[in-house]
């Protein structure tokens, strides 16, 4: 509900309206009904007797449903309380709106109800970049519906509008005459359905069914989603709220790609990234594994289906490469954008193997791992065959699509994210450090799967040797002696791009860091230049390009910090991991349980609250997943064979933390953590991360097997 806008969504269909429920979009205004990267409604304005309405309140009941309470008259002082209006709207392959008028007067009334409707059929890329359309518009009016049509050669998109009450349709909307008895009410359903392709094959409306109270399928599936998820109990109340918010948002961000037969995987975020992303889906699936393995399984299958098979410069595709982004809009269709799909990510392919292994460790699902052997081998082969652009044994990237491809193909994908200490930007190809960590981890994990599941010990040994060799060279070539951390990248001449950045935390997570260097790396991560008190800054304070509200050059990304915390645990730095978890969870509380994509890198001692980054996506999948991964790191959950190791390390402020019914190869397990009981002053908000001293000792760890 940022900027007074109301957003409801289901999969990759979403509606953004003002607080009246109206849509009045311009080419650059992001309101509308969007589906599959296309805006299907850009105007949807309700009037009664020619007058706009005035909002009293909005309930966004569920992520897929909102209710607007309105009264006639747009004046700010006087509202005519003789009549009130309720718009209840649910999204699902279009949307369904139940419009109710209540007459509070003692006399009957007759009212002209009018909805103005239009669509610009803008591609999301056009909304983002404000581009002009190339096709033609038309409308079809009959007795029962209005169809808005956009055509460009064989490309066709349609929006059909119909009503349950008697209505008259014209080219710009629908008119209904409401006669309402004293203290009576009048209702109509309005249906807006989207269609793609010639002949307008409409998808089935999800809200269908009969009666006005038909529940969307999504709602039932949300109930089940929440019922199936582990429960979280804690004496620190905000954590339960944050967890609940994360579960619901993750449900909202599930997206079933057309080929996956209703199985879902996490999409990236609202509103710009409601589509399939390789990197985001993988990171989110990793974060969510202790709570659900369904997202990981679908992500692995869907990304495997689309794995690159040939060289295609326009799409930056290579054999074995895992996609970066899939889009369905007009510009993709006409190859004005390369997202059909686009492969320009240098990390997703290696992370794919990491996820496959981590998925097996949690779920024990060897069948899936066996069925994806070929995909995993192709991904591992890509590392050396296609990603080593300089022939120096390191993964690097340089786009081949010079016009619409991505310059930075790592997760920090803005133009200025990779820089030297002095702020200068290196040339291409660039070998960012975390890519080497992921490559190392992919080989180590690939070796484990090769030995265990694919029964190919020779291949396993080869991968292990390559991993060991990579680790040895990496610790030599990337180590910045005078700062005691790893360089952000090597440039095209093999020189260190020597800025200090959060990427060091991902290196800990990958396991590529020599044990002897870990302490110094942790010192840098937890030092005042990177740790803001809330989380880890993407770029250290004091670097040339540092800016506390620069997208990848100083803001704190909750997802990033969650993986840093995991890395700290991996190297045994439990208290430091708990300190980061505490900061991010405190921030989550400030954002009502919903962490944005990024927030300002200002020191916590200066701002007291986290400052939201201006245009951050929210909800966003891997931010939503961050509290889940932090719960894992706090409890020290680690699958070991058929068992789950539980090794809690709680920050001061949390006395008790329980995650109940953790699903996995062990059936279901409860994990308990006990900290030092510490009750805040009554009436004051207890914050975790403000406590200077980290709990020196933890006690009371135990695990109970319930199934």
């Amino acid at each position, binding site marked *: 509900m940022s900027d007074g806008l109301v957003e409801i969504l289901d999969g990759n269909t979403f509606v953004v309206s003002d607080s009246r429920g109206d849509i009045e979009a311009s080419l650059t205004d992001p309101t509308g009904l969007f589906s599959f990267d296309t805006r299907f409604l850009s105007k949807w304005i309700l009037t009664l007797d020619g007058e706009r309405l005035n909002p009293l309140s909005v309930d966004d009941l569920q992520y897929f449903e909102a209710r607007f309470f309105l009264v006639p008259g747009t004046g700010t002082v006087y509202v005519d309380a003789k009549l009130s209006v309720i718009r209840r709207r649910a999204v699902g392959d279009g949307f369904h709106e139940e419009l109710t008028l209540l007459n509070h007067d003692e006399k009957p009334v007759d009212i002209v109800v009018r909805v103005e409707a239009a669509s610009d059929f803008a591609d999301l890329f056009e909304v983002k970049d404000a581009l002009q359309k190339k096709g033609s518009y038309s409308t079809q009016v009959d007795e029962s519906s209005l169809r808005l049509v956009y055509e460009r050669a*064989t*490309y066709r998109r349609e929006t059909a509008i119909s009503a349950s009450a008697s209505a008259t349709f014209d080219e710009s909307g629908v008119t209904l005459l409401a006669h309402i008895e004293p203290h009576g009410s009048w209702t109509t359903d309005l249906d807006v359905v989207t269609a793609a392709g010639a002949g307008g094959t409409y998808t089935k409306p999800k809200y269908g069914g009969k009666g006005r109270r038909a529940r969307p399928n999504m709602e039932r599936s949300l109930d089940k989603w929440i019922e199936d998820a582990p429960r979280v109990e804690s004496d620190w109340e905000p954590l339960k709220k944050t967890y609940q918010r994360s579960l619901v948002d993750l449900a909202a961000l599930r997206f079933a790609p057309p080929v996956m037969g209703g199985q879902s995987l996490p999409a990236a975020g609202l509103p710009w990234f409601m589509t399939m992303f390789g990197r985001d889906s993988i990171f989110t699936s990793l974060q969510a594994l202790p709570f659900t393995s369904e997202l990981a399984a679908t992500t692995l299958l869907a990304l495997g289906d689309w794995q690159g*098979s040939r*060289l295609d410069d326009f799409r930056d595709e290579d054999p074995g490469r895992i996609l970066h982004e899939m889009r*369905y809009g007009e510009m993709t*269709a006409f190859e004005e954008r390369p997202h*059909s799909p686009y492969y320009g990510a240098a990390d997703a392919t290696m992370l794919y193997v990491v996820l496959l292994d981590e998925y097996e460790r949690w779920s024990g699902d060897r069948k899936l791992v066996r069925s994806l052997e070929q995909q995993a081998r192709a991904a591992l082969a890509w590392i050396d065959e296609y990603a080593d652009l300089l*022939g120096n*044994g390191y993964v690097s990237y340089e786009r081949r699509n010079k016009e619409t491809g991505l310059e930075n193909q790592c997760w920090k994908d803005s133009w200025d994210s990779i820089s030297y200490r002095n702020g200068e930007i290196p040339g291409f190809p660039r070998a960012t450090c975390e890519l080497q960590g992921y490559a190392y981890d992919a080989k180590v994990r690939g070796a484990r799967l090769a030995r265990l599941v694919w029964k190919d010990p020779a291949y396993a040994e080869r991968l292990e040797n390559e991993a060991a060799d990579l680790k040895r060279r990496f610790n030599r070539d990337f180590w910045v002696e005078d700062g005691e951390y790893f360089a952000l990248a090597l440039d095209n001449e093999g020189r260190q791009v020597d800025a200090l950045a959060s990427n060091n935390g991902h290196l800990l997570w990958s396991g590529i860091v020599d044990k002897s260097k870990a302490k110094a790396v942790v010192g840098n991560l937890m030092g005042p230049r990177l740790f803001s008190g809330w989380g880890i800054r993407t770029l250290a304070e004091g670097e040339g390009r540092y800016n506390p509200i620069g997208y990848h050059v100083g803001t704190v990304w909750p997802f990033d910090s969650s993986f840093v915390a995991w890395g700290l645990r991996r190297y045994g730095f439990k208290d430091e991991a708990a300190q980061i978890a505490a900061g991010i969870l405190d921030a989550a509380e400030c954002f009502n349980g919903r962490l944005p994509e990024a927030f300002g890198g200002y020191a916590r001692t200066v701002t007291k609250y986290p400052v939201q980054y201006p245009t951050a996506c929210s909800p966003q999948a891997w931010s939503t997943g961050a509290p889940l991964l932090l719960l894992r790191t706090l409890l020290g959950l680690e699958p070991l064979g058929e068992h789950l190791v539980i090794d809690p390390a709680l920050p001061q402020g949390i006395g008790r933390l329980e995650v109940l019914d953790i699903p996995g190869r062990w059936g279901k397990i409860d994990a308990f953590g006990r900290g030092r009981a510490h009750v805040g002053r009554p009436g004051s908000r207890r914050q975790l991360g403000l406590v200077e001293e980290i709990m020196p000792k933890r006690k009371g760890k135990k695990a109970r097997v319930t199934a």
Partner: protein
Amino acid sequence: MSDPTGAFFTELGRRAHEPMLRKATGRLRFDLTDGTSEATWTVVMKKGDVSVSRKKGDADCVVTTDRPLFDAIVRGEKNAMAAVLRGEIKIEGDPELLVLFQRVFAGPADSVRRREHAVAGSSS
């Protein structure tokens, strides 16, 4: 006159096994029109084993498009998935079969491997 589509299917059938199709199992039919004439190929895939026939029987997925467009696709001049989004290719049935099958189409002829240096120190 060259016949890229005919050559593509003949060659695919000759291979009998195609590792890139190992994930696909099902019958995929291509109905290709060229003016007034229609030509059909049916590809039966099972865990990488492939057989190709000219029969027009039942299929799990039917792909309908113009022969010249399909010629361009198998030559790597056009992208199949973008053509689907444009509405130039119609799919009936299970679209996943086409997603899995499109892996065997060629890439653009001018997309060549960039490798300025030989691999050093990575594998081996």
